[in-house]
């Protein structure tokens, strides 16, 4: 079970680790993808900004060349100079004026200029289209002499007009008199209104953008001057000036001649991405810029999308992993539970087995010999309390002395692993002795050695075996007796037959020889043999009847039986003058009355018969308790019996004195009857002339009131 728990814990950490690794992977790829995308997007934005800036710069340069080109039409143009001279010389010459007007008017039609005027070297307006213009702006008139001296077409950069305060540019063309030594005629000024083309062009953005803007700037001293109107601030053209040293200002960097794409902070203090360019052959620099927020807005959206997706993925994976882990835990705990349940069921089964076993079971600690458990059957069997057993060393239990007497015996159990004792005595708490079979087994229970002892009560078995043995022995004895009976019967019956047949022949011979004395003697033998045979047959029949024909048992006082016996032998008792003493102790017997009476009758007759030469013959009849049993006796003071013949007297047809009357069957009959009532018979006699006492017991005939009640 332990490794399983570790497995469970490890799998939990495994799940967590797998999830962390996976999450890290997902986040890393999310970041990587986002970074790639950001880089690509940034590159695209820069490319776009650069393209726009380049386009505008090219267009602006082209535009400037065009304007200068317009001026060059009139520069060193003799025809135009001639027309101008004619107009100066003859101001009222309408043709000349018309001709001059047509020259200039065509240029004005191009759409970039709002008016044209011709200034004299002092800056006074000589001629203008349209006519009647307000005086020329100072910015223009101040440059006249410079232009004339330079002898070049000049593009006058943004300036603010004195009259309307709006920004303008101007193309100034010196008009010279081709004639040698002649003074310059004046300067043709073509005023450019940036609102007409330049500003809209600058403002134009090829894609719809919320914060995209193009700035045109120039450096003026330590400042950068903004030349166009801004998207987020009004009235800026030529008015907004910012020091060049302001950091990260794209306009300032551009004015300083820096080119390329930068991240900066524009005039509003907002982070922007800007492409910087200078316009060739001009003081101008161009800034094309977009607010960083707009540039990165899609990126931010993309970032959020990525984060959400990563989060969703992580959540999904986490949930999946968690679910898998949970299911794994559930399965694990279910298995644990089932295991525990199975273990519990098995444990219960074995406990029931232990508790309900009809064998005594003792569980010992194999190392110490201490009793760990004892089952109820053993407690009941031996009658000692559970506490008597538990914790004790097995050899400390006194009643185990025949099984495990001491520690050495225990070591024997321990080392033998299996011990079996077939039949050992055990004493129970109430002193009963029972026979047990003892089996001990050593085995391991979770790395701990225990000895299980099974103690089986085999008292009944042992008793039955003993009873069987006894009855078989009795049967064998009976068999021997029967054989002996047959043998003696045949032998003893044969004897008179031999006598009769032989003496009949003698009788015949003696009659023929007429020997009267011999005839008398022959007849005596014949008669005696006949009598003996008749008596033998009678008594054999009598003997065979004992135990075979049984009258219903009756209760009869001992006194009555003894009286009957004495009455039957009254003749010989009186003849021999025998004195009788009876002490019946009021004992009552139960059984076949005739048979029981037969015992005393035979013994009394026997006693009278062997009184011998006793002058004061006496027979005592009585009963006495001896060792918890009633012992009956018939005692005489007759001839006694030699101790050598004590066993022989009870044999069938055994006679100690061949001359004595009787067949030698009387005591055999007595023995038979006594045995029938579960008793035994023996005699005590110190020898010849010392008298004889027959003792016998009749357990089954004892009329026990308690026994009767129980029955």
């Amino acid at each position, binding site marked *: 079970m332990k490794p399983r728990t570790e497995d469970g814990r490890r799998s939990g950490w495994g799940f967590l680790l797998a999830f962390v690794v996976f999450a890290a992977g997902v986040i890393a790829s999310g970041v990587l993808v986002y970074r790639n995308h950001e880089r690509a997007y940034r590159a695209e934005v820069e490319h776009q900004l650069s393209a726009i800036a380049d386009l505008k710069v090219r267009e602006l340069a082209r535009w400037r060349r065009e304007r200068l080109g317009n001026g060059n039409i009139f520069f060193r143009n003799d025809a135009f100079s001639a027309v101008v001279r004619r107009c100066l010389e003859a101001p009222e010459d309408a043709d000349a004026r018309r001709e001059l007007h047509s020259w200039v008017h065509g240029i004005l039609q191009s759409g970039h200029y709002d008016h044209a005027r011709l200034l004299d070297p002092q800056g006074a307006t000589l001629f203008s289209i349209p006519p009647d213009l307000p005086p020329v702006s100072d910015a223009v008139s101040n440059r006249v002499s410079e232009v004339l001296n330079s002898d070049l077409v000049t593009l006058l950069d943004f300036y603010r007009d004195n009259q309307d305060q709006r920004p303008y540019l101007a193309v100034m063309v010196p008009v010279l008199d081709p004639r040698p030594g002649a003074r310059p005629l004046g300067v043709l000024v073509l005023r450019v209104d940036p609102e007409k083309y330049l500003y809209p062009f600058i403002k134009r953005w090829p894609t719809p953008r919320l914060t995209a803007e193009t700035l045109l700037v120039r450096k003026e001293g330590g400042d950068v001057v903004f030349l166009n109107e801004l998207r987020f601030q009004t009235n800026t053209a030529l008015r907004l000036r910012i020091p060049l040293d302001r950091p990260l200002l794209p306009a300032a960097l551009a004015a300083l001649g820096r080119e390329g794409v930068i991240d900066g902070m524009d005039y509003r203090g907002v982070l922007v991405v800007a492409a910087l360019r200078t316009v060739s052959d001009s003081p101008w620099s161009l800034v094309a810029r977009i607010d960083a927020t707009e540039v990165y807005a899609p990126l931010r959206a993309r970032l959020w999308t990525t984060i959400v997706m990563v989060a969703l993925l992580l959540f999904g994976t986490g949930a999946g992993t968690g679910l898998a882990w949970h299911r794994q835990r559930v399965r694990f705990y279910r298995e644990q539970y089932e295991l525990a349940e199975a273990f519990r069921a098995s444990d219960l089964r074995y406990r029931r087995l232990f508790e309900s076993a009809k064998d005594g079971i003792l569980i010992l600690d194999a190392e110490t010999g201490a009793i760990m458990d004892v089952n109820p059957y053993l407690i009941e069997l031996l009658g000692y309390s559970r506490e008597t057993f538990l914790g004790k060393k097995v050899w400390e239990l006194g009643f185990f002395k025949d099984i495990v007497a001491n520690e050495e015996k225990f070591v024997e159990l321990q080392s033998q692993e299996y011990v079996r004792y077939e039949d050992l005595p055990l004493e129970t708490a109430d002193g009963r002795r029972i026979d047990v079979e003892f089996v001990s087994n050593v085995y391991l229970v979770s790395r701990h050695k225990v000895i299980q002892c099974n103690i089986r009560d085999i008292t009944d078995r042992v008793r039955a075996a003993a009873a069987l043995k006894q009855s078989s022995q009795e049967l064998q004895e009976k068999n021997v007796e029967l054989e002996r009976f047959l043998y003696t019967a045949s*032998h003893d019956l044969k004897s008179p037959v031999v006598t009769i047949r*032989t003496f009949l022949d003698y009788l015949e011979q003696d009659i023929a020889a007429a020997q009267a004395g011999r005839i008398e003697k022959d007849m005596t033998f014949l008669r*005696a043999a006949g009598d003996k045979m008749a008596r033998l047959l009678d008594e054999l029949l009598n003997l065979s009847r004992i135990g075979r024909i049984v009258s219903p048992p009756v209760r009869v006082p001992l006194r009555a039986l003894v009286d009957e016996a004495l009455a039957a032998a009254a003749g010989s008792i009186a003849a021999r003058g025998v004195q009788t003493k009876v002490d019946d102790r009021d004992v009552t017997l139960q059984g076949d009355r005739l048979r029981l009476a037969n015992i005393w009758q035979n013994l009394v007759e026997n006693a009278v018969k062997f009184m011998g030469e006793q002058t004061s013959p006496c027979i005592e009849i009585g009963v006495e308790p001896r060792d918890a049993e009633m012992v009956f006796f018939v005692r005489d003071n007759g001839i006694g019996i030699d101790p050598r013949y004590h066993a022989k007297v009870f044999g069938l047809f055994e006679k100690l004195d061949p001359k004595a009357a009787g067949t030698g069957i009387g005591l055999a009959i007595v023995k038979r009857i006594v045995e029938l009532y579960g008793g035994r018979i023996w005699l005590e006699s110190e020898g010849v002339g010392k008298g004889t006492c027959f003792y016998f017991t009749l357990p089954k005939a004892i009329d026990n009131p308690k026994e009767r009640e129980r029955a």
Partner: protein
Amino acid sequence: MKGEPIVILLVEDDEAHAEIVRRNFETFRLANRLIHVTDGQAALDYLYRRNGYADPDISPRPGIVLLDLRLPKVDGLEVLKIIKTDAQLSPIPVVILTTSKAEGDMVHAYGHHANSYLVKPVDFAHFTQLMETFGYYWLAWNQYPH
């Protein structure tokens, strides 16, 4: 057949049977050599010269014993056993004369070195013939050491 005639010790409890044996011996004029005792104990007493058999003149050593098996007090087989285990007595031939034809009796008797085993015939002629043959064999033909 010189010197003292052989004395025959008859151990027989049945008076009638003893009478039959005596009458047969009378016929062969051997009756004066027959000594009769009625039980095993008396036989042993005679052989060991005890209890009234002490006088060798009245109770001479028998030359042969005719022994019944069923005897009062000491059984015939017991008597046989004692005779045959006694160095002094064992040379005396012991002839069993009994009514028993039981195999067990014969086996026991010969087992205890009985010299012969005779069963009493139930009719007169055979009994007489047996006694006559016995007389010739054991008393006339059989040789004894001195």
